[in-house]
Structures are given as structure tokens and as C-alpha cells.
């Protein structure tokens, strides 16, 4: 092989592997998927909207005026002969066949799937029609009392003899309140977007949003009254049953067992509560704990809505735990109970260490106590008589 041939061979290879053009083996060629789906032309009779029966328009639908029609036009509608002549000229100029072809609904693949002749401009959907900028008058000002009084005097002077209330209403409607260009008041320039029309009742889903119809059990009603939360707010709370177990009371009648629930509830925006419930019925215990947790919610201080202020150490029973503040994006790296509590409270960056006992109930109570016993830097700084500036807010221009 000579040198130039080899070079050409090397440089002629494209960067992407080329498609195999020749069958190198006898088996059937694998079906290759096309790059784009094939668009088949629609059959002419096939309607886009299946629910609407379309009747094709023909030239016979556009009939010429008969002699009777023309007589009616002149007698009933007072058309002048000149107008009638114009109508006739127009009819003669336009072929009914063209009308039948052009004034029909489109059936092609680019046709719109809704009916609109696009004759009216909808300010929200279409590009709004704005008043020209020449309408702006920098010298425009409101009329003072004298000028308005002058207008009234003028109205009374020019008032016809038999003035009615209608005259006065016309006057008040057309009364200008400003001095300057008239267009500046009547049709002012505005760069505001048009408001979204109200009363779109059809958008509302049926069966939703009538508070009177919702059945609320008495316990929930009491909870709403006690806490001041609405039903919606209570439903939006994130609720987790963290501890469930059976407890037994030994009496002389025998063993009486109940179910114990420990539940946390939070709105994921800084409110957190824990609640306990105990009953012979599991469902009852669960609801007791749930409602107690919501009744017990307290605001948790959060730094930048994501972590706690400084490290916190707390002891509850034999549980000793430490919650540690962490940088953005760290996540919640701790055991499951504390993790769930952080999720409920809306804390996303935190580390925790539980030492000595790890009793689940006391861990949860200790975590709640720890989150509530945070010291706020501003408060501490005030005690020390120092001025405190959060440099994170300074360095990142408040975008933290």
C-alpha cells in the first residue's frame, strides 16, 4: 500500500461509526428504528374532533338571491337601489365554488382542534392591544376643586330647557378628572399585563371545595377549635407514628392490654409537635396521638430554614443526645426517629449523636426538647452586649 493511499484511508474515517451499508453475513438485516416517527397523511374525510359531525360544504349551499329575496331586502330592510346593485355585483364577482372550498373547516394535520375564527382578540391569550405611547402626558394632573366647579357651571349654563336625569348622567360620565391630554385619561398607556379573567367556574372540579359538605368528626372539630388550624391545614401536616407497642396493666381481674402510640406532626415549615395516645383500640390510640401531636405543635427555630442554630446537647432520662448544625446540602445524617422529626419540622441539614441509652420514646422526647432549647445567636449577642452580623448574608448578597 502506498503512503498517500494509507493517509487518505486514515483521514477519511468519520468521527462517528458509519452505518454498515453491506450485509456481511447472510442473516436478515435487523429492523432499524427511524429517527423520526412517520406522519401519515390523514384521510380527507377523517374529522379531527370525533365528537362533532361535520357536514361538507358544497357550492349548492351558497344560493343566489331570488327575486323575492331582493324585494324583501328593499321593502323590509330599506336597502337603497344602489346598495342592492352593490350586492348583486358582489355575488357576480365571487364564485360559490370558491366559497365552498375556502370557508370550510380545515381537515389537514395543522388544523386547530377547537373552533375559533380568530376574529376577536383575547387580551390574555393573544398579544394585547396597547394604547400608543403618544397617549402619555407627563403634565397630566388632577383637576382642583375650582376647575371641577367650573365644569359644573358650564354644564348648568349649557343645560337645555327640558333637562332630564339622562343629561346629568351623560355629563358625569364624560366629566374629565384630570387636566392635560384627553387620551392620557381615557386610554392611558400601561405596560401591565392584563388581568386573568375571574369567574372561570368551568375550571373548578365538581365535588371539591364546598366546606359545608365535608363531614368532620367531633374530635377533629374540637381540635380545630383548640388549635385554630383549619381542616386543610391539619390535613397538610406531615404525621408519623414513630413508636407503636402494646402495654399491659396487671389488675386483680387479669391483664388489660392497650396499644401505645407516639406520633410526631409538623407542617414542614418550622412547626413540630409530639403526641402520645393509649387505648385498648389501636385506631383510637392512633387518633389520640395524632391529635395530641397537632395540639402540641411549637415553633422550632431554624437557621436559613434548613438547619439548627449551633450545636445542642440534651439529656432526657438515660438518653443523652447531641444535635449538630451542618452546612447546606449535608442532609439529615442521623437515626430514623430523629430523621423523621427533622422531615416533619422542615430541617434538611443536621447531624445527631445519641449516647448512653437509645430508648426510642426518650430519644424522640429528647430531640423535641433539644430543638426547642436552641439558643438564638441574636439573643446571646444581646446578652454579651455585642453587635452580630451574619456574614453569609453579606457574602452571598442575601441569596443563601
Amino acid at each position, binding site marked *: 500500500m502506498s503512503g498517500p493511499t494509507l493517509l487518505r484511508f486514515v483521514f477519511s474515517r468519520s468521527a462517528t461509526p458509519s452505518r454498515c451499508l453491506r450485509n456481511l453475513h447472510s442473516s436478515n438485516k435487523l429492523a432499524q428504528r427511524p429517527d423520526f416517527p412517520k406522519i401519515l397523511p390523514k384521510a380527507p374525510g377523517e374529522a379531527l374532533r370525533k365528537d362533532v359531525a361535520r357536514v361538507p360544504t358544497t357550492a349548492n349551499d351558497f344560493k343566489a338571491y331570488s327575486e323575492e329575496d331582493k324585494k324583501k331586502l328593499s321593502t323590509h330592510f330599506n336597502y337603497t337601489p344602489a346598495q342592492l346593485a352593490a350586492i348583486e355585483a358582489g355575488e357576480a364577482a365571487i364564485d360559490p365554488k370558491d366559497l365552498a372550498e375556502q370557508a370550510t373547516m380545515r381537515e389537514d394535520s395543522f388544523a386547530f382542534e377547537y373552533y375559533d375564527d380568530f376574529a376577536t382578540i383575547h387580551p390574555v391569550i393573544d398579544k394585547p392591544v396597547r394604547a400608543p405611547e403618544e397617549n402619555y402626558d407627563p403634565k397630566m394632573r388632577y383637576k382642583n376643586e375650582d376647575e371641577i366647579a367650573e365644569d359644573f357651571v358650564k354644564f348648568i349654563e349649557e343645560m337645555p330647557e327640558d333637562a332630564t336625569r339622562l343629561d346629568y348622567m351623560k355629563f358625569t360620565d364624560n366629566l374629565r378628572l384630570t387636566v392635560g391630554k384627553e387620551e392620557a385619561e381615557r386610554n392611558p398607556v400601561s405596560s401591565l399585563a392584563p388581568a386573568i379573567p375571574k369567574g372561570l367556574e368551568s375550571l373548578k372540579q365538581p365535588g371539591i371545595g364546598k366546606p359545608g359538605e365535608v363531614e368532620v368528626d367531633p374530635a377533629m372539630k374540637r381540635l380545630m377549635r383548640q388549635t385554630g388550624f383549619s381542616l386543610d391545614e391539619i390535613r397538610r401536616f406531615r404525621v408519623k407514628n414513630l413508636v407503636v407497642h402494646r402495654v399491659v396493666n396487671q389488675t386483680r381481674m387479669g391483664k388489660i392490654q392497650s396499644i401505645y402510640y407516639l406520633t410526631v406532626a409538623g407542617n414542614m415549615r418550622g412547626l413540630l409537635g409530639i403526641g402520645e395516645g393509649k387505648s385498648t383500640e389501636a385506631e383510637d390510640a392512633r387518633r389520640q396521638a395524632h391529635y395530641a401531636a397537632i395540639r402540641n405543635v411549637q415553633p422550632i427555630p431554624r437557621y436559613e430554614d434548613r438547619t439548627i*442554630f*449551633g*450545636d*445542642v*446537647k*440534651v439529656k432526657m432520662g438515660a438518653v443523652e443526645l447531641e444535635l*449538630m448544625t451542618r452546612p447546606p446540602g449535608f442532609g439529615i445524617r442521623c437515626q430514623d426517629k430523629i430523621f423523621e422529626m427533622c422531615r416533619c419540622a422542615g430541617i434538611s441539614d443536621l447531624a445527631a449523636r445519641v449516647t448512653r441509652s437509645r430508648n426510642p420514646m426518650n430519644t424522640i422526647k429528647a430531640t423535641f426538647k433539644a430543638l426547642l432549647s436552641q*439558643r*438564638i*445567636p441574636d*439573643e*446571646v*449577642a*444581646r*446578652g*454579651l*452586649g*455585642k453587635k452580630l452580623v451574619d456574614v453569609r448574608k453579606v457574602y452571598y448578597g442575601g441569596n443563601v
Partner: protein
Amino acid sequence: MSLVLLAHACSHLQNASKARLGLTSLPSTTQLHTLLLQLQKSGYVNTVVIGGPTPPPPSALAPTMSANPEARKEIGGGHVAVWGRRREGGEVEGDESEDAMGTITQANVASRRLWVGLKYHNSRPVLEKMRLVSKPTRRVWMSMGDIAGLVRGERRGYVDGLRGIGESMFVTTDRGIMEARECVERRIGGMLLCRVNPVSW
């Protein structure tokens, strides 16, 4: 220099804060005095006054009533009232009738005490915790680089970083006792004395 007195002072200040005392006294030594003045500069205590075995008069303790504005300015612009402090001219500031209580002489130096006004905010002590870092049996010295790490909240050696809210550490250097952050600012190392925390954990 012994750290035993300092250890006792740490415990005593903690106990006094827990008992919600407004005024307490410590033995008068130069080390304690300079440390307390630093504590005052950092805002942990209200007043530091050298007095006799009985508490000094309220006029001497009230920071705003200090007769000498220079004395107030002298340490960090904080509220400083030094009772019976000698000025350059050798004359003694303060009322002549209380002079015996305020003046330090060779005869009364042994009976002098440091009177410390404690601070409270929102019905909580401002100084809740004070612990030795160097122990009498084990001193800890650190270079400026390591102290900078502590100030950033990192653990260096066996010493935890200053991660608490409003926590400070005091370091004794060849330029006197100062706060760890000031050490870093002035680029000097020294022996770690104690750490002070406005929060009890």
C-alpha cells in the same frame, strides 16, 4: 503559674451564676484580674473591681458612675470601673473617705479581693459555663495556626473547636491574656487557659 486558683475561679463563677448572684468575689491575683478584664471586654461580666474583704460601695461598681472617663475607655471601651486605681500622677481616684477600702498598699494587698458583677439576660446568666482547657497537670500550648483552627470550630489535638454560640477561649501569651480570636488576629500562640460559654452545654 499555678492553674489551681483559676480552676477554683471557674467553678466559683459557674456556681455564682447558677445561684443568680449579682456580685461575687475572687482572690486577687494578677492572672485572675487580667482574665476577668478580658471576660468583661468580651461581655461576660459587668464589672471588675479590686476591693477589700467587704463589697465596695455601689458607686464604685456602677459602671456609669466611674469618676474617671479614662478608666472606662482603657479596656476596650466597655463598662469598666476600677475602684481606687492609681493614676499617672500617683493620686488616688475616688472619695477620700473610702480611700482605705480602694487603695492597694503593701499592708493591705494580702486582703484584697476581686469583686465581679455578674450579668443576666432574659433571666438567664450570660456566663453559664466556664471550664479549664489546660489542667494543672497537663498544660496545652498551641501555635497561632492551631488556635485559628479552634476558632473556626475544628478540633485540634484533644481540644474541641469553638462551636458553641457565643463561646470564647482565653489564651495566655507573652503579650498577656487575650481571647483566642484576638490571638489569631495578632498572629501569636500561647497556652490555652479556659473556655467560656453563655450556654450550659
